[in-house]
């Protein structure tokens, strides 16, 4: 069995469409120094660094090199640093990387840092289009929003989900993000406002889509010996993993269901010994760059039956007052520094378990779930965090 690992520190930055008040290393240092402060350690205490970003979405390649001095290496260079990039799941994959650094027994305290300055890229959707095959799929404009639009169209067709359901997802998340000082979009609107917003990729309107953000996030993982000394309430990793779907979108025909996520969820729940996710998970931070995805994720993660995701929004189950609050931070829909967004889900879930989520805290959280998707919906990561050591 792997060594037990816990999250002991979290650092978030303010996010906006262009953080022109700070240079790239300053942005990263904002997250790193906050995480180090959170568990009251100096940079010397960090044994290794995992850095996540998606270079093609930045105005700079290999930002981990310019930012290396900002990553705990300050004053202690020549530490192990591993860069991880897996598209939208980059943050989730980097968190898994931090976990395995410690679980291997090779390192005790590992800093995971993710950053992205989408504000400096020319056109993120065009960049993402280069991910798909140049012969078969690039020509019809495959990217994030177009794929999400296919998911929405299918879900509406097969399960009767409506544009109003999507609008309600947007309203709920914006309601939540107004409690989150680190979110990019912090304004509220009504279902009617959402339904009147501009159509971007049918049936997704402006209100159904995430912004593109500049921001960074840092999370510190520690071994079972070190964790209790570094945090009053460490967030223990109960189970985590990733799944890889087919490269060609045409080989993933069921856009109305997210089967790869459902398979991963079953694996992770088995590892975490979770029988009834809706009852046993207290809060979930899901990666919903588009409103429809939150509905698909409810179903794939077993919070409800297939096709019934919209019901959880309508009956308030996933609102802050509901049985299983989802995305108290407002999620990716309100803040998307791409390579960091997955790690922000892990960070927010950890804050909930540690009881440090301030105005967005869900009461009495014991178990939290963090999710990310990426690679034109081909990858997912999940991490279950718990107040109790496994």
């Amino acid at each position, binding site marked *: *069995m*792997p*060594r037990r690992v816990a999250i002991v520190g979290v650092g978030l930055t303010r996010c906006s469409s262009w953080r022109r008040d700070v*240079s*790239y290393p300053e942005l990263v240092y904002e997250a790193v120094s906050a995480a180090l402060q959170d568990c009251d350690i100096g940079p010397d205490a960090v044994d290794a660094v995992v850095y996540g970003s*998606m*270079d*093609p979405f930045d*105005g*700079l*390649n*290999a930002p*981990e*090199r*310019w*930012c*290396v*001095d900002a990553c705990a*290496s300050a004053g202690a*260079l*020549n*530490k*192990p*640093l*591993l*860069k*991880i*990039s*897996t*598209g939208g799941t980059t943050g989730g*994959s980097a968190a*898994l*990387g931090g976990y*395995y*650094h410690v*679980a*291997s*027994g*090779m390192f005790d305290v590992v800093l995971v840092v993710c950053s992205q300055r989408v504000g400096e890229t020319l056109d993120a959707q065009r*960049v*993402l289009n*280069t*991910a*798909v*095959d140049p012969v078969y799929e690039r020509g019809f404009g495959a990217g994030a929003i177009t794929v999400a639009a296919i998911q929405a169209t299918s879900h509406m067709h097969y399960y009767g989900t409506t544009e109003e359901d999507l609008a309600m997802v947007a309203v709920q998340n914006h309601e939540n993000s107004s409690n989150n000082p680190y979110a990019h979009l912090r304004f509220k609107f009504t279902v009617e406002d959402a339904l009147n917003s501009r159509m971007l990729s049918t049936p997704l309107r402006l209100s159904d889509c995430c912004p593109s953000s500049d921001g960074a996030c840092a999370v510190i993982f520690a071994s079972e010996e070190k964790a209790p000394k570094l945090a009053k309430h460490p967030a223990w990793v109960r189970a985590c*993993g*990733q*799944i*890889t*779907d*087919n*490269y060609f979108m045409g080989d993933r025909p069921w856009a109305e269901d997210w089967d*790869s996520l459902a*398979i991963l969820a079953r694996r992770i729940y088995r590892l975490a010994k979770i029988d009834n996710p809706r009852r046993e998970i207290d809060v979930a931070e899901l990666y919903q760059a588009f409103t429809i995805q939150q509905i698909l994720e409810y179903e794939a993660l077993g919070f409800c039956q297939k096709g019934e995701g919209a019901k959880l929004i309508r009956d308030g189950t996933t609102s802050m007052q509901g049985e299983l609050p989802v995305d108290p931070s407002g999620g990716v829909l309100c803040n998307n520094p791409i390579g960091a967004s997955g790690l922000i889900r892990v960070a927010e879930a950890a804050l909930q378990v540690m009881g440090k989520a301030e105005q967005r805290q869900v009461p009495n959280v014991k178990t939290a779930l963090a999710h990310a998707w*990426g*690679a*034109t919906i*081909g*990858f997912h990561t999940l991490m279950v965090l718990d107040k109790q050591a496994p």
Partner: protein
Amino acid sequence: MVSRVAVVGVGQTYHEEAKSTQSYYDVAFEAATKALEDAALDKGEIDTVIASGWDVADGRTISDMYLVPAASGYLKDSAKAAEDGVLAFAYACMRLAAGAFDTALVIAHGHTEHPPELVSNVVFDPFFFRPMGASTITTLALQACAYADKYGVTPEQAAAVVAKNRRNAVDNPYAHLRSPVSVEDVVRSPPVAWPLRALDCPPRSVGAVALVLAAGERMRRIRSDVAWVRGVGWAVDGYELGAADLWRLPSLAAATARAYAAASIKNPLDELDVAEVHDITSYHELMAYEALGWAQPGGGARLLEEGVTGRGGKLPVNPSGGVLSTNLHAGSGLLRVAEAVLQVTGRAGAHQVEGARTALAHGLSAAAGPAAAGNCVVVLGRD
């Protein structure tokens, strides 16, 4: 490490200037399939896949989308080190050591048909270094220049590295450049960035390399002649070139110290039988000798001149021909590990070093970084 890890399968394509009849994923598939065949495993028996590479040099975003399924990773737990494949290898070792998986496949590729000078220029900050024209090759040249100046290394002494490695590549059927060159050829080749001349620099090769790793009980059932991972260490140096001692490789020295400590190696020259180092330029092979603790600072050229690192020497270096003969850009480091595995398992064919039991592989994450600042060292043993 919690559990012991070994390499049980190696696969590589023939490396060449271009592969016009194979798409990206076909090249990766070929290497992965050969590695699985070498380990006599079915793709279903691989638990986790770690890809590698640098999207901006490939011209493709999220290259692991196609690399991982091509390398038996469909519906499996995968990740990508946005580095040279040698760091994907390090990550796979951690995943196996943690006991979460029994088998792993690591894949790296080279697809940099065009010079990565522009994309490597964009690695640098937009204020100071980028407008100066800093890039991978110009910063490597700055290091070579500082090293040559500090220790009086002559162009001929550096060129001897090229002559050695290119001669070695003649015996390696997978190598890209398999024609020997003389010291004179090197010093007369056209200048690229002072003091580097065309033949001091590696080619750009297209190809892929894959390794299958296994841990614990599972491995014993796969094969008996495995290459044990005795130690892995890696480190990244600071960013500011102006603040660095350009004539040495501190991150390689730090990585080496970690790997030697894990492998309990005290006298590397006596304990290592063969090494594959990342000779990103001829000067960098000499600098690596020093950072790896085989020679005093400035003593690298003498080690070569005394024949220590030649074929038949005490510690043959790059019997495969090294990076100067085959450069998979973000796969060259993993190719060093693959060659070291072939050596310690006695399967290197015509370039086999007799009786090699302990091998060192050094990979430079040149893909992403300026000035040879990210290094990884792997020690492999038959025992």
